[in-house]
């Protein structure tokens, strides 16, 4: 492995040779986590396969288009990269579900309003809706888990979520663990 260039070392970025070494030595846990993160980013995306997304993220960091800051864990860095790539891919997918007011099945008028206000294609809107339905199904019977996840998505702090839902810190931590385990299992590829 070549040592980092002076510029790389000074700027706090990992050299591409070090990236290659990190890729070659991925642990089972990190590999599985990357598969989950890639699948997550492909939820609701039309025509985006998790394998392609992950491959593109690896390629970009290996060819230096994206640079890995030395103080960021590799998996977190790749997750950021995939977020960016998926975002590029879905640039036209500004699916503003907020315009629907509330995501309710049968709300055809709401969908029509959104379609009129944006350039969402029916396929993209369907994919986004399908994603929400899948998440709802995943948390069927766990209203507290879903509510905690929603609170996080809104950007609420842990204290705010606990106060809103009447959870003590122990129950909150237990709920987080339940969510994590449910998500990790759900997001593992079923066909590999």
């Amino acid at each position, binding site marked *: 492995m070549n040592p980092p260039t002076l510029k790389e070392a000074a700027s706090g970025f990992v050299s591409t040779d070090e990236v290659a070494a990190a890729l070659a030595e991925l642990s089972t846990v990190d590999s599985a986590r990357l598969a989950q993160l890639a699948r997550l980013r492909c939820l609701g995306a039309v025509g985006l396969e998790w394998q392609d997304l992950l491959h593109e993220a690896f390629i970009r960091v*290996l060819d230096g288009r994206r640079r890995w800051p030395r103080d960021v864990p590799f998996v977190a860095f790749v997750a950021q990269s995939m977020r960016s790539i998926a975002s590029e891919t879905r640039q036209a997918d500004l699916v503003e579900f907020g315009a629907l007011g509330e995501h309710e099945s049968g709300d055809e008028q709401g969908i029509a309003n959104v379609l009129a206000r944006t350039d969402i294609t029916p396929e993209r809107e369907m994919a986004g809706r399908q994603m929400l339905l899948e998440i709802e199904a995943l948390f069927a019977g766990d209203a507290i888990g879903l509510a905690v996840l929603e609170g996080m998505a809104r950007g609420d702090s842990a204290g705010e979520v606990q106060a809103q839902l009447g959870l003590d810190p122990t129950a909150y931590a237990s709920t987080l663990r339940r*969510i994590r385990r449910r998500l990790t299992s759900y997001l593992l590829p079923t066909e590999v």
Partner: protein
Amino acid sequence: MIKTYHPEQLIDAMEAMILAADADDLLSAPAERLSAAALEVREIAGRSLAARADRANVAQPRKSGRSSRGPGPLMDYLKRLVAARPEVSPNLAAAFAAGKSPSQEEAEALAVELLKARLSSPKPGRKRRTEGSRR
């Protein structure tokens, strides 16, 4: 029922959960699916690394010195040539015999001289074939 916000916010929240998951959380998933996913990710990583190596080989400028892969076909050929016919280049033959390798420039210079000699020499075989074809 999920309240409304941009789906990406929900994905971001779930991503944070996955990143925060510890090994115990991950290992709570079925072992076969876990190992199969890990295997596929490693394959993707392998493909990415191979693509990088391919690009590096294509982009590698031609070096005048010997590469790390060995002496190369030209040097191999000259070594065999001067071993069989030392009179072609006594200096090169002596160098090889002493276990030394000449520089790439020396080898290329000799190769050029041999090629010139070969091109300027008569080619009776080719002439015969040409004549034969005209008949």
